[in-house]
């Protein structure tokens, strides 16, 4: 390799030297040819000058009276022509040749001599010799200077001897004068020759550099060509790879589409299975409950208890499988709502208190003081995790205790966030070290005997672990076989301020109300499943409600045309017209009428987005099958009240704008407190409304949810159900980032708030400036309007015991008689919500 490189370098050097020589010659020849041409023209010019000069200075010579052409004229013409003849021919036919240069040089010097003669030997004309030598140096060929100077020297030498006076003007010093004259020529020749040689050396250097440059350029070009060839080859290779990748990508795309299709099929399968399994389960659980409420023989009760237990267990298993499937499919979203941690912990303990007591276990919960009380997160899923862990602890512990604790965890929290560490410790059977990792895998337990002895699907911990991970935490276990286990998990929550936290509790945590007094309602049940129809009818009628059944959406619309209903229970999947479509028609028919029949979705659809789709379609509530009767009663109770009032009257109080009685009750009967609350609300709600508007315009779901929630929490104190319902829908829209129907709902909320403000404004005025008017028993709408129309703050109905409310401090608003009869019912409904 090195030998080859050496040979290459040597060859390259030789080639460069040859090229430099060629360039040098080429350059020199260029100079020679250019200078040849220059002198050709110069000689011609000088010839013409000589002719002109001779003709001007000495046109004629005389002999007495006879004249003839002066010999100078003849010499200029003929001798001059002779002088430039050969150089011109050579320049034309042998440009650049050495002979040409030499002849040109001689001719130039001879032309100078001729001019000297023609001017009568003027001293100044002798400078022509030096000028000519300088010009001849253009050739950069010292030989031309030597020959030309030699001509001058020989001329002087020869003529000096033959006609000395013709050269020196004197016959004296002939021996040395030629040397003096020639010396001056040689003097300038020395410098000109040195200049020529220097010029040639520089030309050679330039030629060598140019040759080296060309060699380098050629080398670079060769390298570039080599590299280009390599790149081309690599490009071909890459193109081939790209083609392969494209093929692979197409395959992958097809595989992805296939997988997505399979996933969609799986999702659809899940939805269908959920519906198909839950529908009969709904019937089994419901009918069993109904059956257990009848008089039964002990055996029958035992059998039905077994059926109920099995059905509940089966429902738990189905829920676990659905949860796990949803998590695996990425279709499970966590809620982000304010909640009370103590409530969640207490609720968990309450669930297991009976079982713990039954097994003789001590069940305790500890919350460190520094743990925030109010958080923002998904309380339902947190409760699910805790229930799973505490339930496992109780399940696998025969004696001792099960304790749950929560401590703040260090680090990992962002601004406004808190990381909590939950621990559930039991003194149960414990888990062997080699099994501790497998228990978190789906469908796996510590060993097969565990399943046989304790039951379970093996999904609980897997689900808990996935939920914990979704909450930004980790789940792990510390356990000693025979001594017990401690499950730890961390989770990240946002901090909630105390007010919104408390508000949220009013809104989202239903208060247990075992002694509920339900009002009789007209209920339209839209359900195609006969079994579910029977179950729902039995449940509803058992509570004293009147039930009208429609088998599908069309029948529901027809029923609505004939009768008014307090509430509609609507299944989603039905033949001919589904629940969503029917709801859209109902809401369209209501538009402009001021009516709003509450519609509660009642369906076995349990997948993500179902509830949101229902609310967006215009429904007011959602109950999944199997029906949680407590939840159903709560929702019906709350929603149907509004409808009842709406259909009964159009007065503000009767349309669910205000429940003054409930408000007063919440204030402990203290009118002053009530007025302060009213005043506070009137001052604060516009900012909440603005916050909702801003959140909607910025399309920020979390802000919309928070603002709507805050407003809802405030409005619920007044029994302002329309406001509450609209705010709740906005809150849910914010939680799901669904803004499609938000504007319409906002308009509805605004109208409801305006109505509420009109009613509240007199009540919210300072007490010293108004006269309170509370009328009981209720006034008719006409009476109510009449009171308002007769003048501000003027008591008009002397038959009623009432308080008087002065309308306005400025006398701009009419007084309103607030009817309290119906508000008692509203108040009860609100109290069930936890107020």
């Amino acid at each position, binding site marked *: 390799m090195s030998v080859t490189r050496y040979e290459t370098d040597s060859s390259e050097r030789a080639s460069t030297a040859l090229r430099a020589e060629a360039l040098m010659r080429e350059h020199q020849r260029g100079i020679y040819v250019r200078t040849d041409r220059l002198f050709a023209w110069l000689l011609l010019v000088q010839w013409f000058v000589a002719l002109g000069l001779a003709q001007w*200075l*000495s*046109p*004629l*010579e*005389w*002999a*007495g*009276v*006879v*004249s003839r052409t*002066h*010999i*100078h004229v003849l*010499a200029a013409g*003929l*001798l001059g022509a*002779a*002088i430039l*003849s*050969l150089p011109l*021919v*050579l320049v034309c036919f*042998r440009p650049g040749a050495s*002979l040409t240069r030499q*002849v040109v040089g001689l001719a130039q010097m*001879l032309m100078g001599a001729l001019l000297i*003669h023609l001017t*009568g*030997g*003027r*001293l100044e004309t002798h400078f022509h010799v030096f000028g000519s030598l300088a010009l001849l140096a253009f050739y950069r060929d010292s030989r031309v200077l030597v020959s030309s100077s030699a001509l001058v020297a020989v001329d002087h030498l020869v*003529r000096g001897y033959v*006609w000395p*006076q*013709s050269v*020196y*003007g*004197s*016959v004296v010093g002939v021996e040395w004068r030629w040397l003096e004259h020639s010396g001056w020529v040689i003097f300038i020749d020395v410098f000109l020759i040195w200049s020529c040689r220097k010029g040639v050396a520089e030309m050679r250097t330039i030629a060598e550099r140019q040759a080296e440059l060309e060699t380098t350029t050629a080398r670079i070009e060769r390298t570039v060509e080599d590299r280009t060839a390599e790149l081309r080859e690599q490009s071909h290779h890459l193109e081939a790879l790209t083609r392969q990748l494209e093929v692979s990508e197409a395959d992958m795309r097809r595989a992805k589409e296939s997988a997505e299709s399979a996933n969609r099929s799986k999702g659809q399968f899940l939805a269908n299975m959920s519906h198909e399994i839950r529908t009969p389960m709904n019937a089994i659980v419901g009918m069993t409950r109904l059956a257990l409420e009848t008089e039964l023989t002990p055996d029958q009760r035992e059998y039905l208890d077994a059926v109920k237990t099995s059905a509940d267990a089966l429902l738990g298993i189905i829920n676990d499988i659905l949860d796990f499937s949803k998590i695996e499919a990425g279709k499970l979203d966590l809620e982000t709502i304010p909640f009370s941690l103590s409530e969640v912990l207490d609720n968990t303990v309450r669930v297991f208190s009976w079982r713990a007591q039954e097994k003789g276990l001590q069940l305790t919960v500890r919350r460190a003081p520094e743990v925030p009380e109010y958080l923002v997160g998904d309380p339902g899923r947190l409760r699910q995790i805790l229930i799973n862990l505490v339930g496992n602890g109780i399940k696998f512990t025969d004696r001792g205790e099960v304790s749950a604790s929560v401590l703040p965890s260090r680090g990992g929290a962002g601004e406004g966030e808190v990381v909590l560490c939950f621990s559930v410790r039991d003194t149960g059977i414990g888990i062997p070290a080699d099994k501790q990792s497998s228990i978190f895998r789906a469908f796996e337990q510590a060993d097969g005997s565990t399943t046989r002895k304790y039951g379970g699907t093996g999904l609980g911990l897997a689900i808990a672990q996935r939920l914990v991970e979704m909450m930004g935490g980790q789940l792990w276990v510390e356990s000693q076989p025979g001594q017990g286990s401690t499950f730890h998990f961390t989770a990240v929550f946002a901090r909630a301020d105390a007010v919104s936290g408390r508000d949220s509790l009013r809104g989202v945590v239903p208060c247990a109300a075992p002694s509920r007094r339900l009002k009789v309602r007209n209920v339209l049940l839209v359900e195609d499943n006969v079994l579910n129809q029977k179950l729902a009818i039995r449940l509803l009628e058992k509570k004293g409600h009147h039930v009208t059944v429609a088998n599908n959406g069309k029948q529901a619309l027809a029923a609505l045309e004939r009768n008014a209903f307090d509430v509609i229970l609507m299944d989603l999947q039905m033949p001919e017209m589904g629940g969503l479509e029917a709801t859209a028609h109902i809401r369209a028919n209501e538009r402009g009428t001021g009516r709003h029949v509450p519609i509660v979705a009642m369906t076995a659809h349990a997948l993500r987005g179902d509830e949101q789709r229902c609310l967006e379609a215009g429904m007011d509530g959602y109950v999944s099958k199997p029906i949680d009767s407590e939840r159903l009663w709560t929702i019906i109770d709350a929603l149907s009240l509004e409808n009842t009032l709406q259909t009964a009257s159009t007065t503000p109080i009767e349309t669910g704008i205000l429940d003054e009685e409930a408000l007063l009750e919440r204030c402990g009967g203290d009118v002053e407190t009530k007025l302060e609350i009213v005043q506070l609300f009137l001052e604060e709600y516009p900012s909440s409304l603005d916050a909702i508007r801003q959140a909607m315009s910025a399309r920020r779901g979390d802000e919309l949810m928070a603002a709507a929630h805050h407003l809802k929490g405030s409005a619920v104190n007044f029994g302002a159900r329309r406001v509450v319902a609209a705010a709740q829908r906005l809150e849910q829209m914010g939680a799901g980032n669904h803004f499609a129907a938000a504007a319409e709902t906002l308009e509805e909320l605004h109208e409801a708030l305006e109505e509420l403000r009109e009613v509240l404004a007199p009540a919210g005025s300072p007490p010293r400036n108004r006269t309170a008017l509370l009328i009981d028993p209720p006034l008719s709408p006409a009476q109510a309007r009449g009171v308002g129309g007769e003048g501000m703050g003027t008591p008009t109905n002397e038959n009623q015991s009432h308080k008087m409310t002065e309308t306005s401090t400025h006398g701009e608003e009419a007084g309103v008689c607030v009817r309290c009869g119906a508000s008692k019912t509203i108040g009860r409904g609100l109290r069930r919500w936890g107020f």
Partner: protein
Amino acid sequence: MRSAARYFWIPALALWIALLATGWHQLLRHEFTAGSRSSEADDWPVDTALTRDPAWPTLIFFAHRNCPCTRASLNELEAILSRAGVRPRVWIVLVSPKEGNDDRVGSGIEERARTLPDARLVLDFEGVEARRFGARTSGHVYLYGRAGELAFSGGITDARGHEGPSLGRRAVLRRLQDETRERTVLPVYGCPIYLGDEDEQTRER
């Protein structure tokens, strides 16, 4: 091809050199051929119309009125006069071979002569004065001493129409600076004032 070129160009070169040598020889021969002259008078001619100041040397310059070669002689005369220790009385005699001014061709000689300082210009029609002094060639210079003796006779250029240091300039200057008392006679280079015998015959007619 290369030798063929050589066979062509070398003879061409030789021919060129020969041609130039011939031409050059002709030119030089013309320039260095002295004009004819007659015998000089030893003393100041008595019949001349020119006057002489015995207090000063007298220099007489004869020139053909149209001879361009004489310009170099006039330049030399000016150089001599500017360098001379003793300034002679100077006569410049412009010989017109014919009577009248119709032969003047505008050679510039007369104008140049008028520029010489302290020189008296005389127009000598038909060469009367030239004959008195014996001058036959344009540019002939006569220098007479204070006593009227001829000190120099000849040209003050060493070739026809060729200015520059010359034997004549040197001789005149030496005489004017009294460095020599010898008479110097030198050839004269210039146009003939007369056309030989034919011219003489014409004059006699």
